[in-house]
């Protein structure tokens, strides 16, 4: 059996990873005490474990305080939806009173999504909407990698930009994450409280068959019920550790992320409602199915 690093072994026993402090501050009472000791001495504010008494947010190299939550939002031809999803995100975080940033990874959309992103920077503030412009459609996986490079938050969220994932569930994810200091919180459409709007029987069947295959082959464990979902909250270092090891091409990498995460990290789920594409058609043709099966096989043989 391959040697598991100590952290992964600890994860397997169900203990959570402490997020590393982005700032080396310690409370004056015990200078030199590391973050874990401070955490044991008195329960820290759940969203800031670096300092037990200070409420200062960590400073970022670029100036200004780093937000706690970074949302990675790859976009392609989302001119209509981008302002709406950004407003919903800002509402969700403002309601929670949490600092955030949205990293829009724009693949040079022909419909001018980048211009809309810049307009939203004016509305919400350039610190809240960060724009990463790429030369063209370079793939979803690399979009997340590029987005993570500029993201400053301790937690990273991913969701779809087409309004199928409603930011109102973010507060549920945040709450769940704090409950058990989970490393990953993923949205599920298949547990009670979750669901899908806009799928006919054929689409549902495809989804359930795909899930059955994936669960049979990959056996991710009882913590996850929705392998193909992409509405998730991660501790930053989970992604930093997983991204270099991903082997999938295409959208099945979402599945690979959650399968690997379920093995090595503490994962929880919250039910979400998925509203399938209000505007435009959802593409699920033969090519997608073949790509899925191929991707599933790749993960199966690599894990």
């Amino acid at each position, binding site marked *: 059996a391959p040697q598991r690093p100590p952290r992964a072994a600890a994860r397997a026993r169900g203990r959570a990873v402490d997020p590393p402090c982005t700032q080396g501050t310690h409370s004056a009472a015990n200078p030199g005490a590391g973050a874990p000791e401070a955490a044991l001495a008195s329960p820290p504010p759940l969203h800031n474990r670096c300092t037990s008494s200070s409420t200062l947010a960590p400073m970022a190299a670029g100036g200004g305080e780093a937000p706690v939550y970074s949302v990675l939002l790859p976009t392609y031809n989302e001119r209509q939806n981008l302002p709406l999803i950004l407003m919903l995100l800002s509402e969700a975080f403002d309601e929670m009173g949490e600092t955030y940033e949205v990293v829009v990874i724009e693949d040079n959309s022909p419909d001018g999504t980048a211009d809309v992103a810049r307009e939203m920077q004016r*509305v919400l503030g350039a610190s809240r909407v960060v724009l990463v412009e790429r030369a063209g459609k370079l793939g979803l996986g690399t979009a997340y990698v590029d987005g993570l490079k500029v993201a400053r938050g301790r937690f990273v969220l991913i969701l779809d930009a087409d309004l199928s994932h*409603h930011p*109102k569930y973010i507060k549920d994810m945040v709450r769940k994450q704090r409950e058990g200091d989970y490393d990953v919180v993923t949205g599920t459409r298949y547990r009670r409280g979750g*669901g899908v709007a806009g799928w006919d*029987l054929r689409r549902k069947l495809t989804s359930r068959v795909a899930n059955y295959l994936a669960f049979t082959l990959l056996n991710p464990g009882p913590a996850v019920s929705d392998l193909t979902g992409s509405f998730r909250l991660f501790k930053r270092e989970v992604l930093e550790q997983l991204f270099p090891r991903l082997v999938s091409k295409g959208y099945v990498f979402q599945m690979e992320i959650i399968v690997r995460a379920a093995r090595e990290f503490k994962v929880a789920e919250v039910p979400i409602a998925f*509203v399938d594409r209000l505007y435009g058609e959802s593409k699920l043709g033969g090519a997608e199915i073949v790509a899925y099966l191929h991707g599933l096989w790749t993960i*199966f043989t690599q*894990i």
Partner: protein
Amino acid sequence: MRRYKVITTVLLSAVLSWVLLLLNMDALGLDAKAQEVVEILPLWALITLGCHALFSIGSSLATFNDVPHEVDALHEDILRVKAALQSKGVPLE
């Protein structure tokens, strides 16, 4: 060993065992009824697997949670957010 290697090893061993059993049924002294069982074993296993899949997929389809009201809720949120955007001077299509 990696998971898929374990699975393929087990599967191949099972197939091999069955073939050996099939070829040596008489030598091993199996009566006619037992031989019938051996012959039909792979088909039975396949059908059992199919039944499990059918049950699992069927029950998950039956309990699939439709949430049509979420479409309306989303529409409302979109209208509200569009109004907010217009008040901030963002041109909308």
